[in-house]
């Protein structure tokens, strides 16, 4: 008789990851290029543009403030968008998920594998802005070594959120609504380019439920010195966000993929 089916089988998740890694070998140049150039442009634009007007923000050099803030932006851009578009393309246009689910892989393992892969990329690409900022004068510190794992953790949440968005949207054109109504505000009210302390109170409250804000704070503290329980709280929020988005992504992808 058959053994009881196992959930989150390592072999199945590995299969999904291998597919992504092998595919990555055919497009890594373009992705790496944009992931490196984009934060550089942001750093240059904000660092030199605003940096000429303001020299210091919230106790930091403006270049340092923006350099660390851009990490969170890079994490967001390298996770939520590839997850949204990649997922939609793979299930709707390329029918890749039909092939994967015909193999001994369940939707839960499929979503987990995809999210882990994108999180790994976010861990790497999310750290690039720090290297760029160092070129512009950011001092290296030991705490920076924790930035890739932070970027991975936040990337996992945003990747899961992207998969969830793709599972919920009927058409790829609807992504525009999500981008304008949800992602752009989250991206701006996160303390990346200006501190949230200057915002009206409602916006400050809103920022606190924005996972990206917690990522920004955590990265800043990682670079300039952790602040005890505050950072434990930031980690907790990012983990909670990741777990919630992951489970919801599985639930709605199952609804989408299995009739």
């Amino acid at each position, binding site marked *: 008789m*058959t*053994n009881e*089916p196992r959930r989150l*089988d390592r*072999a*199945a998740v*590995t*299969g*999904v990851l*291998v*597919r992504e890694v*092998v*595919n990555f070998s*055919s*497009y890594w140049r373009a992705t790496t290029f944009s992931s490196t150039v984009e934060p550089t442009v942001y750093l240059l634009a904000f660092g030199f543009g605003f940096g000429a007007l303001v020299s210091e923000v919230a106790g930091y050099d403006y270049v340092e403030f923006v350099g660390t803030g851009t990490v969170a932006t890079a994490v967001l851009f390298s996770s939520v968008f590839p997850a949204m578009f990649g997922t939609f393309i793979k299930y709707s246009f*390329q*029918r*890749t998920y*039909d*092939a*994967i*689910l*015909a*193999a*001994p*892989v*369940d939707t839960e393992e499929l979503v987990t594998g995809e999210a882990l892969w994108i999180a790994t990329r976010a861990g790497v690409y999310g750290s690039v802005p720090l290297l760029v900022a160092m070129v512009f004068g950011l001092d290296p510190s030991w705490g920076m070594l924790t930035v890739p794992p932070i970027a991975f953790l936040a990337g996992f949440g945003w990747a899961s959120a992207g998969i969830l968005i793709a599972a919920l949207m009927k058409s790829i054109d609807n992504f525009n609504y999500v981008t304008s109504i949800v992602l752009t505000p989250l991206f701006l009210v996160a303390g990346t380019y200006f501190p949230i302390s200057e915002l009206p109170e409602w916006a400050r409250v809103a920022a606190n439920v924005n996972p990206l804000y917690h990522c920004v704070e955590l990265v800043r503290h990682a670079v300039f010195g952790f602040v005890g329980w505050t950072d434990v709280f930031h980690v907790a929020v990012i983990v909670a966000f990741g777990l919630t988005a992951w489970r919801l992504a599985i639930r709605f992808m199952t609804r989408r*993929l*299995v*009739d």
Partner: protein
Amino acid sequence: MPEPAIRLRGVVKRFGAITAVDGFDLDVPEGACVGLLGPNGAGKSTTMRLLTAQAIADAGELEVLGHTLPRYSKAARAQMGVVPQLDNLDTTLTVEQNLLVFTYLYRIGRAQRREAIEAALEIANLSDRRGAKVDELSGGMRRRLLVARALVHRPRLLLLDEPTVGLDPQVRQELWALIDRLRSEGTSILMSTHYIEEAARLAETVTVMAKGRAVANGPPAQLVAEHAGREALEVYGPPARLREVEHDAAGRGWATRRTGTSVTILRAETLDGDAPQGERRPANLEDVFVLLTGEEVT
């Protein structure tokens, strides 16, 4: 008695108000090639999706390779290969990379991986194109690669969903030869198709599906003898003449069907001397298909 490769009993699948599969029974004995023949919309593709648990039945019993679905579907999927109707290869990867990915998805051990890829390349006759990107392959090669991909793990059961749809005749025959080889090697096969010739040539048993149900089941020759008799009479003529022939035939209780330019009178061997002028030919599976499904063949 050996356990059947597939056994479905009373399977029902609804999509809202539409019942796509409506009390469907199907048997694929171990080592047999069964053709699932039916017009578009008969429920063939839904049945295929039920077999991989990409659709969950509302009622009925489903067993694949001795595993009850959907609960134990993963164990069944590990031992079966699926060739989808729509090409879903990774087009920016090479032939070999596509196969490599599936050796992981089908959990082939590291030691056997190389060998599995070589065997699949050989079966699909793609060994000399291993380094080519999928984008560069012809339609026929892509389809062969799809079959090879479904075979990397030497499955006991192969599902083919409309394997030759949209292929030109020469490529179709190439693929038939490949399926025939797998069949002779003992792989159980379930093949859905709406090409009569494909089912007649490759399948030992044919299940005719219409409106979500099995309306006939048996070896092609037996189905023909049972439902369409030995001979058919094709009567040609202008539309007015064809209507007249149909009218007369109905009056005499002869079974007929329209074939575009002619009216076919079935069981022509039983007609007496006053049958209309026409061409006699052996009855075939197409006659059965049209009789049972009420659909015209295109």
